[in-house]
């Protein structure tokens, strides 16, 4: 299946990107990057570096939106940046990187690329969104026709019943740019919402045994993966949220390929943008057995199977 990956390229986004190389069914056409904490071009550079290390030479990489549509950018959790920037600095020092990475980075805007690709393959493109929805919202505003040619959008974001991770009721990606989320959720009627209700149940704890194949195939990527998971685990401990890392974004990727991993509830989803305590909340309105509900909200997950599929993909087995 043809996939465009819209991401802020922080911790678990990178795990998802690495997994795309280990799932045969996925044809990754492009990666569009939101600029969290660093300019989007730098996040795009990191994506290009990962793809290069994975031996992927066909996927195009774009820098997307730099900050939310209306609001000031949020810093967010910086826990995973250390291993990621270490990887970036290492790659930058690697011979010839600057000439290689030019072949990945693209001068068109991310929104343009998404639109053109959807026009080229009408009804075939899946958008996987694991960051703030700013770039997608911009694409929709710039090219409204896009909503007719997209096949579906799988969003890691929001929460229905579970407590949020940036407020008691809001999840980070939606909270980071609620106006963008409101645009996406109100214009598109083919969304799968993979929110905290399921991602917080899909957990991993790092151990060398789990990543033996990856370590053998690609020590550099293995080092990056290990760094991301262990620093994320440390953040969880610090926040009193247990010792394991939730696989938010990898689960969203897996749902693209294996939708049967989650049980969904047909809903209409509205985004609160004006609340004093509720901004960024995904208000899910049950649509009963409605076949044409605009959003399928994941509410249960076979987490054991999800974790094993994640390990299979990342180890390229």
């Amino acid at each position, binding site marked *: 299946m043809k996939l465009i990956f819209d991401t802020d390229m922080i911790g678990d986004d990178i795990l998802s990107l690495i997994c795309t190389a280990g799932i045969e069914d996925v044809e990754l056409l492009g990666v569009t990057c939101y600029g969290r904490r660093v300019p989007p071009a730098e996040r795009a550079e990191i994506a290009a570096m990962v793809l290069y290390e994975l031996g992927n030479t066909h996927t195009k990489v774009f820098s997307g939106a730099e900050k939310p549509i209306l609001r000031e950018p949020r810093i967010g959790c910086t826990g995973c940046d250390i291993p990621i920037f270490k990887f970036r600095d290492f790659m930058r020092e690697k011979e010839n990187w600057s000439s290689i990475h030019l072949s990945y980075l693209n001068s068109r805007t991310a929104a343009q690329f998404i639109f053109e690709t959807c026009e080229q393959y009408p009804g075939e493109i899946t958008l996987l969104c694991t960051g703030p929805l700013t770039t997608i919202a911009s694409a929709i505003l710039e090219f409204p026709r896009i909503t007719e040619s997209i096949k579906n959008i799988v969003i890691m974001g929001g929460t229905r*019943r579970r*407590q949020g991770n940036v*407020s*008691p*009721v809001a999840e980070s990606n939606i909270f980071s740019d609620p106006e963008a989320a409101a645009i996406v959720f109100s214009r598109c009627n083919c969304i799968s919402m993979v929110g905290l209700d399921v991602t917080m149940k899909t957990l991993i704890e790092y151990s060398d045994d789990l990543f033996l194949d990856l370590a053998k195939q690609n020590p550099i990527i293995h080092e990056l993966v290990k760094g991301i998971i262990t620093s994320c685990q440390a953040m969880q401990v610090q*926040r*009193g*949220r247990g010792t394991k890392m939730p696989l938010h974004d990898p689960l969203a990727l897996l749902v693209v390929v294996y939708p049967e991993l989650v049980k969904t509830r047909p809903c209409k989803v*509205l985004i*609160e*943008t*004006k*609340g*004093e*305590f*509720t901004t960024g*909340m995904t*208000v*899910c*309105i*049950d649509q009963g057995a409605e076949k044409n509900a605009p959003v399928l909200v994941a509410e249960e997950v076979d987490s054991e199977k999800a974790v094993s599929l994640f390990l299979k993909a990342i180890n390229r087995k």
Partner: protein
Amino acid sequence: MRERQIPTIIDTDIGLGHGKADVDDAIALLVALASPRLNILGITTVSGNVRSDVATCNLFMLLERIKRKDILIGYGCAEPIGGTNSILIKRWSHSLTNAERDLLREIQITREDSVSFIIERLLEAKEPVYIVAIGPLTNIALCLTQRPDLREKIKQIILMGGSTIGGKVTPVAEFNIWADPEAARIVFRSGLSVVFFPLDITTSVPITPDSIRKWNNQGSEFLKYLHKESVEYMHFRSERYGIREAQMFFHDVMPVMYIAQALSFIFEDCNVEVECSGSLTRGMTIVGRGVWAGETPIHRMAVNVDHDSFLKKTVDLITENYRSFE
């Protein structure tokens, strides 16, 4: 030796007597009035399920019917702090009969309004008082704003309200809080500890016609009347919400069973904010639990109860104490 009684004021938006209004306030009051543990200093009315004048008449008639005219009552408030809206106005469309209008006029001459009433009771109380609020929080909030010094005369506020699982009046809000969010915010931010029973727990025990069948065969006209009103309300609900089975919930009965009958509940410490802005979420309770509870959570949310025991004790208590009434 007799156990020391708990001084209590109950604030209600009782709908019994005006069809299609929830009868759980009435059941809750009946439980309280039959509980020797409570020293009921008075019952006050507020607009919510029905307008406060209607609630006042309902309360008066109920007390008369069970021969408890010794209970002091206060009337009002009519309007929520944050103003009314079209849904409330529609709910409040009951009109009073001439007899009710006369009754109300008399009550308004001889009794105090709810806010003054509560303030008076607190002023004369020798020990801190429990306030049980089973309607919107307008009266309680106005007491707290007018006489913040009386906070120390309030031992605890026990209320039915809020939800973390959405609601019927909006997808995210429960009625009592939604009907006057500004009042709810004042109460939750007053510094007083609030023990609250949200929809999460009150809807965990569905009441069906079968649950209260007993009331129909005690030879008591009063219990038959309660049964009939409850069953009618269940059918009305199932039609309105498209639910297959006729059922209702004893929302307001839970806080009363807790304080008046010492029924055991499991609580979770938390903090609570009430959304008063919000284009979709006005009236929502934002409950911070676990990692979001903060350093010093002062409120307590009821999260669990033995369902069978709650149901059986409530139904039996009503049966035993009111079977002699006509």
